[in-house]
C-alpha cells in the first residue's frame, strides 16, 4: 500500500498538534519518524493508521482518501494496516488467541458465533488449546514460537511487546505502523523485532516507524523524517539525514544536543 500525506494537519479544540506534514510510505519502504517527545510522532502514526481523521490536508491510501469512503470501505482499508503501540496492551487470554484476534474478527458472524459456542462448551468439559499455522508463523517471526499456549499475563514486558508485534503481523498487513515498538526492549529483543521489520520490507510491505533510538533509525530506515513541534523539519534518505542534515535543528537532534528551556528551543 502506498500511503501519502499531503500537507496534513491535526488539532484538538483549536490546538494544533501537527501542521502541514507531507510524507509518503511506499511498498517495501521503511520510513522512520524521529523527534523529541511531544513532537507529534504518535499523532502522526495514529493518523496514518486511520485512528484519527486529519483536520486539514489530504491523506491517501493507494491514491484514495479513506475518509471519503463509506465506513465499510474504510474498514477494508484499515484492515490492510497493522499497528503496534508503544505499550503492548495484550488481551487477557492466551498468546495464540491474542495473535489470532485480527483473523478471528475478520470472519463472518455465523462462524464467529459457532466458535464462541464451541469454546463455551469446551470450557465446561475440558480446556485444550490448539494453534493455527499462521499464528505459529507470526510468533516464530518474533522468536516466540513455543510460547503460543502461555497466558498473555505471564509474559515479560519484552515478550509481551513481541507478541503484540506478532499480532500485527498475523493479518499480513500491507502497511505496518510501529510506535516506538522497541522502547522497552533489551538489545536482543530489539534485534529480533528489527529483523521482523526487515522481513516485512522484503515482502514488499511498507513500514512507518517512530523511534527515539537514533541507531535503530539508522539501521532499519530507507528514509528518515525529523518532526519538531508538529512540523516536519526534514525528510530524506537515512544516510543523508544522519551524515549531512540540511537543517541545523536536525543536525543538533541527531547529535543529541537539541535542548529545551521552558519548551523554547535554545538558539
Amino acid at each position, binding site marked *: 500500500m502506498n500511503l501519502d500525506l499531503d500537507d496534513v494537519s491535526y488539532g484538538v479544540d483549536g490546538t494544533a498538534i501537527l501542521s502541514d506534514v507531507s510524507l509518503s510510505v511506499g511498498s517495501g519502504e521503511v520510513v522512520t519518524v524521529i523527534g523529541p517527545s511531544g513532537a507529534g510522532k504518535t499523532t502522526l502514526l495514529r493518523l496514518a*493508521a486511520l485512528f484519527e481523521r486529519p483536520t486539514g490536508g489530504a491523506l491517501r491510501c493507494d491514491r484514495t482518501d479513506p475518509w471519503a469512503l463509506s465506513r465499510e470501505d474504510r474498514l477494508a482499508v484499515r484492515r490492510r494496516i497493522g499497528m503496534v*503501540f508503544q505499550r503492548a*496492551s495484550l488481551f487477557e487470554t492466551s498468546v495464540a488467541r491474542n495473535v489470532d484476534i485480527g483473523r478471528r*474478527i*475478520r470472519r463472518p458472524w455465523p462462524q464467529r458465533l459457532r466458535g464462541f459456542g464451541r469454546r463455551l462448551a469446551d470450557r465446561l468439559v475440558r480446556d485444550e488449546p490448539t494453534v493455527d499455522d499462521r499464528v505459529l508463523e507470526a510468533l516464530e517471526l518474533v522468536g516466540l514460537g513455543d510460547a503460543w499456549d502461555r497466558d498473555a499475563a505471564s509474559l515479560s514486558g519484552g515478550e509481551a511487546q513481541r507478541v503484540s508485534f506478532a*499480532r*500485527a503481523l498475523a493479518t499480513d498487513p500491507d502497511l505496518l505502523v510501529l510506535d516506538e515498538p522497541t522502547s522497552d526492549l533489551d538489545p536482543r529483543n530489539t534485534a529480533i523485532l528489527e529483523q521482523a521489520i526487515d522481513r516485512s520490507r522484503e515482502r514488499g510491505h511498507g513500514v512507518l516507524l517512530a523511534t527515539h533510538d537514533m541507531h535503530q533509525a539508522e539501521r532499519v530506515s530507507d528514509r528518515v523524517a525529523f518532526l519538531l513541534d508538529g512540523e516536519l523539519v526534514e525528510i530524506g534518505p537515512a544516510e543523508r539525514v544522519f551524515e549531512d542534515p540540511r537543517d541545523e535543528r536536525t543536525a543538533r537532534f541527531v547529535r543529541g544536543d537539541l535542548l529545551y528551556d521552558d519548551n523554547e528551543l535554545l538558539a
Partner: protein
Amino acid sequence: MPFESIADPTYLRSIVRVSLTVSLTAVLLSTALSLPIAFAVGFSEFRGKRLITAVINTGMGFPSVVVGLLVLMALSSSGPFGSLELVYTPEAMILSQCVLAAPVITGVALSSVESVDEAVRDAAYGVGGTRADVALITLKEARFGVVTGVLAGFGRAISEVGSVLIVGGNIAYADGTSKTRTITTAITLETRRGEFETALVLGAVLLALVLLVNGVVMRLGGR
C-alpha cells in the same frame, strides 16, 4: 399441615422450581437490559454521566420492600398496569426482582467496563476491529467484573424476601405445590410456625443452589 413439610418432596421441588424460574428469568431480563446501559454509559462522555452513575449506585441499595410496594401499586387493579392482572403471580415477582437486580448488574458492569484500559480499546481497533468488535473485546476484558455483577444480581434476586412476599403473596395450592412461594418466603413461613427443621433444610437448599449457579457461571467465565 403435614403435606407442607420437608418430608414431602413435591412441596420442596415445587418451591425450588418457582424460586429458580423466577430468579433466573429476572436475572436474564435485567442482564439484557443492564449490559447495554453499562456499555452506553461506560463508552461515552456526556454531561450528567456522574449523576447517572450515582443514580445506578443508589439503586444497588434500594430496599426490596419499597420496590415490592411500588410494583404492587403499579400492578394492582387501580394501578396503571392493573388490566394485566399480574398481582400474586410469578410474573409480578419476576418484575420486582428485575427492578432489584438491574442496578446491581449495571453498576458492577459499568465500573468494570470503565476500568478496561483505553489502550486495550485502541489495540482492538488497531487489529481491524469495528465498533462492535471493540465493544465485544472490551466486554471480554471486563468479563470477570460483568460475571461478578450478574452473580451479585442473581444473589440479590434469589435471596430476596420483601418484594416477592408483597407482589407474590407466598401462595401454595391445596395440593402442596407452590404458586408463588419461593425458598425465602417458605423459610419465613416455616420459621413463623415453628418448623425450624424445614426452614433449615430450605436454607441449606438455597445456599447449595447459589453455590451451584456461581460455580457453573464462574466456570463458563473462565475462572
